[in-house]
């Protein structure tokens, strides 16, 4: 299995953005996750080919970072913050509600591949605690009831693109600060939505 033409072009552009190819390992790992919806041995081998490293070296890097997920990942990764500011304002109850609503325990991926649920450390949304992310798109000021609705919406509507702005409007509450203008874009899968990775989609 080799990467799509788009992924290969992006990989070359990413490598060219650094003085040394090895620096592209991190963005390339995201690209590998985008291609296979999770990190596979084949994906890591491809990253090695672009950077001149062995699969073992790539795996050693990938295993250090919590956002590189080996094996398959759900369509929607729901990350619930339980660090101090969210803990003080009910983050633990939010995580319980998400796990109960989706039927997927924290740290697990559901059997149907719909959801991956995780309790995570601080996501920089402390002024809008408690906060969650869906595919790294943020929703601030949530409640256990609101995240149940959020998960139900994801399961029922299966949105192709999830965006912070849309979810915040429909399910969020207090924000850390005024977010400024709305963004049309959002995440197309369980990888941060970022232009150079080709993971940013436009909400229809």
């Amino acid at each position, binding site marked *: 299995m080799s990467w799509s033409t788009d992924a290969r072009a992006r990989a070359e552009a990413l490598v060219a953005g650094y003085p040394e190819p090895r*620096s592209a*390992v991190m963005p390339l790992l995201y690209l590998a996750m985008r291609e296979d919806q999770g990190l596979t041995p084949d994906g890591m081998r491809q990253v090695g080919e672009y950077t001149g490293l062995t699969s073992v070296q790539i795996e050693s890097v990938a295993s250090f970072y919590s956002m590189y997920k080996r094996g398959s990942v759900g369509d929607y990764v729901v990350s619930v913050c339980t660090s101090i*500011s969210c803990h*003080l304002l009910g983050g633990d109850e939010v995580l319980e509600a998400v796990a109960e609503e989706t039927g997927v325990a924290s740290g697990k991926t559901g059997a149907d591949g719909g959801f991956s649920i995780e309790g995570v450390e601080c996501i920089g949304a402390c002024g809008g605690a408690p906060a969650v992310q869906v595919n790294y*798109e943020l929703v601030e000021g949530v409640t256990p009831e609101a995240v149940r609705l959020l998960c139900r919406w994801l399961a029922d509507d299966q949105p192709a693109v999830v965006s912070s702005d849309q979810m915040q409007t429909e399910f969020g509450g207090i924000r850390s600060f005024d977010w400024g203008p709305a963004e049309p874009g959002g995440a197309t899968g369980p990888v941060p939505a970022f232009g150079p990775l080709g993971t940013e989609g436009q909400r229809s």
Partner: protein
Amino acid sequence: MTERILTARMEEHPADSNTLHRYEATGGYATLRKALAELSPEQILDEVKAANLRGRGGAGFPAGVKWGFLAPAEPRYLVINGDESEPGTFKDRQLLERDPHQLIEGIVLSSYALGVNHAFVYIRGEYARPARRVQRAVEEAYDAGYLGENVLDSGLSLDITVHLGAGAYICGEETALLNSLEGRRGEPRLKPPFPAVEGLYSKPTIVNNVETISNIPWIVANGGAAYDSIGPEGSRGTRMFSLSGHVVRPGNYEVVMGMTWREMIYEIGGGIRDQNGLKCWIPGGASAPWFTPAVLDEPVTLDDAGRLGSMLGSGAIIVMDETTNVVAAALSIVKFFSHESCGQCTPCREGTTWLQRILERIVAGHGREADVGLLLDVCDNISPGLRWPPAQTTICPLGPSVVSPITSIMSHFRGEVETMIRQAEPAGV
């Protein structure tokens, strides 16, 4: 106290403060144009030194002094630390998202001063939305001639690469960040050599926080002396504070330092939710020892926080009201450090894990009488003497950081810990 250096534009133009159009229309990049035409790199360096701008990432090291350490070898690099992950901190997120061109102008000015041709903005992976905003602003700046070959016909060439992290707090430590940027595990390096001598690819490198560099356009425009005239000695300029927890009005506030903690919590933060009493607060992010109402009338400055046995750190103030279970709160922080320990150094790797396990059993109602002493003993192994500033047995300060919540609850709320343990049901945990 209404001085605004960093946030005036986003407050006045909430609809488009992130765009090049608005940035230029409000005077943006005029400083760069003037500086490239009229100032030498040394003159910019002198202004930043004169400003007495202290780093806004956590350590508070003077930026101009750090710049002065940059070794002459080439190439040199500038790396912007946008890995903001200290629990309680969300100020850089706002600066990245709402005024990315202010940061970019700061990067170009700094690169000119430092002789840098390639700068990196390392943004934590969970900040997808801010990273998109910065990436778009970088593209706008290239198109407008503020980046790329021969910036504004000055002869300066500068590229910016936006790099996403992948969920590791430790990469906010500057040498771990550099390893991460090199495509390695984010493990901190032994210092010396410091990055200014051997940093990215072993070349001279300056690593500065997002907020630090966002101040540079104002400093170059108005002069270092003007910046140095704002705020008390040792805490010059304005500063972004992130207020969270049980306050009525959480959020980021750009303020001149020197007000009291009472003003910070009760006026700026609007007081405590439900009109509850204040139990304690963390003055500078999860790594900082906690304060209690006994110091409410002390001034908010870097040096005063240090004198009182804590720090302003990353500017994150986490407020806890009288209903807070402080042992559970300490556990949340210890769990954070346990999860984020990179595992290189035994005191940190093992110590954070043991502290978490002991606190978990206390919170679960299975505490043992010996646990108070055991917690302090484990802490003493991580940071001998339990003093402030902490002694370090580890490569980086993450290890001693886990000690702060434990010593805080032991010095201020020991009775509560002991009561929890006394009420425990015996169990074989």
